[in-house]
């Protein structure tokens, strides 16, 4: 089983708009994060680009389709393709989300919420152990944003902690998701951070969100807001062996704008700033 290597630093997501910048090798980041599914293809320009980026930057793989909370178990074909990509990329680590995406062979392509019950915990842990064994590596799972909360036996943070305890998996803490869900469901985000196991949090996501009709929506289309920056500072005081990455998937600005935002993360983290500092 490949363990997650010690790694701290500041990175960005690899998006088409910035391919030329990364291929030039001039983007001052410590790592780049790819959306795994975008590169789980047979060939062509996506893999050509990824191979070139891989020569210049450490890469982490972040997936959206593992559906680790699926009551029906995992898709063997998906896992095989993910493993093929991981073997090719040799990433620092592979992550996905604590969610499910569909049933009976149908896929919503959304990160759907789980009930935080003992039954769900057993399902998720069974699936994580299966995925980790298939991929031969310890995985990270990200806390999702959610827009509804089922009656539950435990809080989301307690669920995540138990999940790590039972499977040995690690966590990708999305600070924006904690904030969005805390507003939507009325919980204390600081207490949420306190309930997570310090040693298991290895990466942090930052992103922007938008205000929907009834609640906040995790849209990744705006800069990180002040409240999320404040929560990030709290998180960095507690979790010190982490890599930080800013996600932007819509209304993507020029790379310099994201790099300026990443500089804010470097400054606020209080962690040793790497690369471009």
């Amino acid at each position, binding site marked *: 089983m490949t363990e997650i290597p010690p790694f701290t630093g500041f990175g960005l997501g690899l998006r088409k708009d910035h391919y030329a910048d990364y291929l030039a090798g001039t983007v001052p980041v410590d790592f780049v994060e790819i959306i795994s599914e975008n590169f789980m293809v047979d060939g*062509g320009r996506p893999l050509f680009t990824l191979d070139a980026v891989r020569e210049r930057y450490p890469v982490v793989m972040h997936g959206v389709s593992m559906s680790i909370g699926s*009551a029906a178990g995992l898709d063997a074909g998906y896992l095989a393709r993910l493993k093929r990509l991981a073997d090719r990329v040799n990433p620092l680590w592979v992550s996905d989300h604590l969610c499910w995406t569909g049933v009976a062979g149908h*896929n919503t392509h959304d990160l759907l919420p789980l009930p935080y*019950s003992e039954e769900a915990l057993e399902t998720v842990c069974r699936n994580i152990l299966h995925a980790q064994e298939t991929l031969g590596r310890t995985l990270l799972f990200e806390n999702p944003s959610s*827009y509804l909360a089922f009656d539950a036996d435990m809080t989301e943070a307690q669920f995540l902690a138990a999940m790590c305890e039972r499977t040995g998996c690690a966590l990708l803490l999305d600070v924006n998701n904690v904030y969005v869900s805390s507003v939507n469901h009325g919980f204390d985000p600081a207490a949420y951070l306190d309930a997570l196991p310090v040693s298991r949090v290895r990466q942090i996501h930052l992103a922007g969100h938008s205000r929907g*009709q009834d609640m906040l929506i995790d849209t990744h289309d705006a800069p990180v807001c002040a409240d999320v920056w404040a929560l990030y500072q709290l998180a960095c005081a507690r979790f010190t062996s982490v890599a930080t990455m800013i996600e932007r998937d819509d209304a993507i600005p020029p790379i310099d704008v994201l790099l300026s935002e990443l500089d804010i993360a470097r400054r606020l983290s209080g962690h040793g700033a790497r690369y471009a500092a």
Partner: protein
Amino acid sequence: MTMVDLQRRFHAAVTSPGETAFEDWDPVLRPGLAVYRNAYRARLIECLRSTFEKTWTWIGDESFDAAAAHHLIVKPPQSWTLDDAGAGFDETLAQLFPNDPEVAELAWLEWQMQQAFIAADDPALDAAGFAALSKDFTEEAWASLRVSFVTGMRSRRVRTDCGAVWTAIATDREIPADILLAEARTLVVWRQGLSPRFRMLGSEAAGLETLQQGGTFGDMCETMVKRLGASGIEEAGRALGVWIAQGLVRRAEASAQQNR
């Protein structure tokens, strides 16, 4: 309720067609369900708009979004990759626009170009490689020559010059007034290097079909002679040369003995 039942119910609430007020759900959960339901539809339509950008431009926002929403109902996404949501969209459009064949044909072209973009990296046989391979060919070796094409290559018969529509939209030029072809022709899509290409074939289309069905170059010549007379053999050779030059041919192999 078990996890399996909950996930089935939730999935149905998010993806079922028509309007719903989630009457059989706890009122506390309904606003959230509405968010997931709206996001499902919006995400998939956005994906189809992105994959079929030129078809979207051709038929306009309203018609495209209605067709995309219909496609989600008749062919709900099944793959782990969002990109596959566009599979069969040309068939959906063919049913929705029976009197406008260019709509489905344009969508087919866009879909196949997307597939070619990510197809396996087959090394194509180049002109120098083929010259080396065939330099000692006897007449029998030429006749026995079998050709296989690169993995991402696809072809179909089209009734319209959908390629001209694609090009006009891509280059922001005026779309030709008459795009209906006098007779159906064969449109080929493949990837040359890293770039998807397409090309409308002429008389060589029948020869291509012969090779795709496992026929030899000799069979192809015969097909072409039937269509073009004595010049068919020369045309077959010219067509094969063009396909090799354009990166369509993966492998060529003669089974008959060659000169030593």
